[in-house]
């Protein structure tokens, strides 16, 4: 095992997949000499050349359209949308094209397309560079979605995505790029649709996404000091969603907190909560708690942004609420 950053883990996955298959190419803004805004692809141009590491104009629709067309005709493109907020200018290519092309054509093509993007706040990047928009995509049948929360998953999920014959979207968290994790020296893959039980516990189930996994683990430590044992589950992928692992935990604990950085209203927590409610209602001892951003654009000033975004204390409070609930 090697202790490497989340950024380096993503880069290793890209390098290994570029080495593995000549059909793999990268398309995106400032990904070549510049190495990407978050320096994820730094060095890949030197190793693989401009034919495979392709800088583009600032044209998200053209990036995703070219990726869709290339995937439909035999390449395996990895497109980068610099900030997930920028999907907003190119949603047609994701929603109406990539997600539907195979189906519309009666299964005649495969679309081995991977889209990487950076999500999340906590950097004073303000309202147009901080959002968590995974729920938009979960609503679209035909897409696969992952939110890796650590270096190991960031590498393994991406490698699996590149080899998947379907459109996949990976939301990397920009606050995690510098975090370090243990990653095997030898190549490995993380399957999509298998949740990770990050910490076992018995009193409350916390379903946490992306950087809320780390916040939930911090919360778990605090709660342990009070004698409260929480189980932290990271679904890792939303589509497909490993609801079975979540349900098994809920049936054990009877109490649930769902934590994501995206705003609560219309967030993916609503979908997960609905499924838990439907399949495990008799096991629930308290209403399902949802932790997320307060419904607001993300502010610029750090003190304001902290007011809007959830953290470990938000999780602690939610766990207390669910334990304090008296039926």
């Amino acid at each position, binding site marked *: 095992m090697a202790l490497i950053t989340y950024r380096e883990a993503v880069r290793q996955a890209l390098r290994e997949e570029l080495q593995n298959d000549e059909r793999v*190419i990268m398309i995106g803004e400032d990904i070549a000499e510049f190495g990407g805004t978050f320096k994820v692809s730094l060095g890949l141009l030197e190793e693989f050349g401009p*034919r495979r590491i*392709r800088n*583009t*104009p600032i*044209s998200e*629709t*053209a990036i*995703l*359209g*070219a*990726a*869709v*067309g*290339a*995937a*439909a*005709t*035999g*390449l395996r*493109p990895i497109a980068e949308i610099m900030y997930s907020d920028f999907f907003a*200018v190119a949603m*047609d*290519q994701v929603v*109406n*094209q990539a997600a539907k*092309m*195979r*189906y*519309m*054509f*009666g*299964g*005649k*093509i*495969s*679309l081995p397309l991977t889209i990487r993007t950076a999500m999340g706040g906590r950097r004073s990047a303000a309202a147009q560079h901080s959002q968590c928009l995974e729920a938009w995509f979960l609503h679209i*049948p*035909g897409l*696969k979605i992952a939110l890796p929360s650590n270096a190991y998953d960031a590498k393994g999920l991406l*490698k*699996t995505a590149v*080899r*998947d*014959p*379907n459109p996949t979207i990976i939301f990397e968290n920009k606050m995690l790029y510098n975090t370090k994790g243990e990653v095997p020296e030898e190549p*490995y*893959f993380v*399957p999509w649709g298998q949740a990770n039980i990050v910490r076992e516990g018995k009193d409350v189930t916390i379903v946490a996404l992306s950087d809320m996994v780390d916040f939930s683990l911090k919360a778990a430590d605090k709660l342990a000091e009070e004698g409260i044992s929480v189980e932290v589950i990271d679904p890792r992928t939303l589509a497909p969603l490993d609801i079975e692992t979540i349900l098994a935990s809920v049936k054990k604990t009877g109490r649930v907190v769902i934590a994501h950085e995206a705003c609560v209203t219309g967030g993916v927590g609503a979908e997960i909560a609905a499924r838990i409610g439907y399949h495990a209602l008799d096991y629930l001892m308290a209403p399902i708690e949802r932790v997320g951003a307060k419904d607001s654009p993300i502010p610029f000033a750090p003190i304001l942004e902290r007011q809007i975004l959830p953290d470990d204390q938000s999780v602690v409070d939610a766990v207390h609420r669910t334990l304090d609930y008296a039926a």
Partner: protein
Amino acid sequence: MATDLARDTALQLYTTMRRIRSFELAVVELFARGKIPGFLHTYVGEEAVAAGVCTALRPDDYIISTHRGHGHLIAKGGRLDLMMAELFGRSTGYCKGKGGSMHIAEPDLGMLGANAIVGAGTVIINGAALTAQYLGTDRVAVAFFGDGASNTGAFHEALNLASVWNLPSIFVCENNGYAESTPQHQHQKIANIAQRAAGYDIPGVTVDGNDVAAVYRAAVEAVARARAGGGPTLLEARTYRWRGHYEGDPQMYRPREEIEAWEKKCPIERWRTTLLAQGVPSAVLDDIDEHIRQELEQAVAFAEESPLPDPADARADIFTPTSEVC
């Protein structure tokens, strides 16, 4: 008008236009009789564009089409029976009844789909062109779109990317004078959309889109340039759709006389006249017409007799099955 085209090519242009026209007039009637569900956008009057461009292509070249896409698939070699079955929503159709008129596709013919989002195909075709370029083939990739699409962001992003990557993309604008109901002078100030090529430092050509030989020659030139690594072309073909934007369109936005004036410029009659003047016996053209009539009759019968899709398959084909990845 004299033509120096090879006789086979000249007849192929005629046959393709006639197949498109016959198919479209048949589906108009079948739609009116309730045999075809959904929306129907016909290509009547614009046949010379698809025929002229696709006759300049090889079977392994790519095209992407629009909501008005039947003509493009026919011109790329589509089978009328499989198309008709798709429009009928039958399991034997090109897309097993999942795409219909607006999404009809046949990747095996290089036809990457009719696309019902105006302008979207212009960016996707660059991906096909990129594949061709990346793999070192000399295949080219053609996007068909209308005058309306030339005002979308996708169009401009597509031309720019094709230009900077020197892609073998050919952008064929079928300027029929209307973006749905909005006349061209209301939706853009320029008259010749090909002018927009200048902004991307690529060749821009405007041709008479009802002159199939002119379209064909312009396409041959653009295709040759793209195959040789000379990059993209914007080819504007000025034409007119005889019928509404969709079947059922009351067409309050244009005068009857305008339609009638364009009907007199029928690209098929015009080409037929040229061929006859060139000495092609009318019996040869009549034979083609008769052959197409029979083909169409069989296509309708095939569609009528084809089974409906199995409702159990409604959610099949969303994802490609993932075998063990690693």
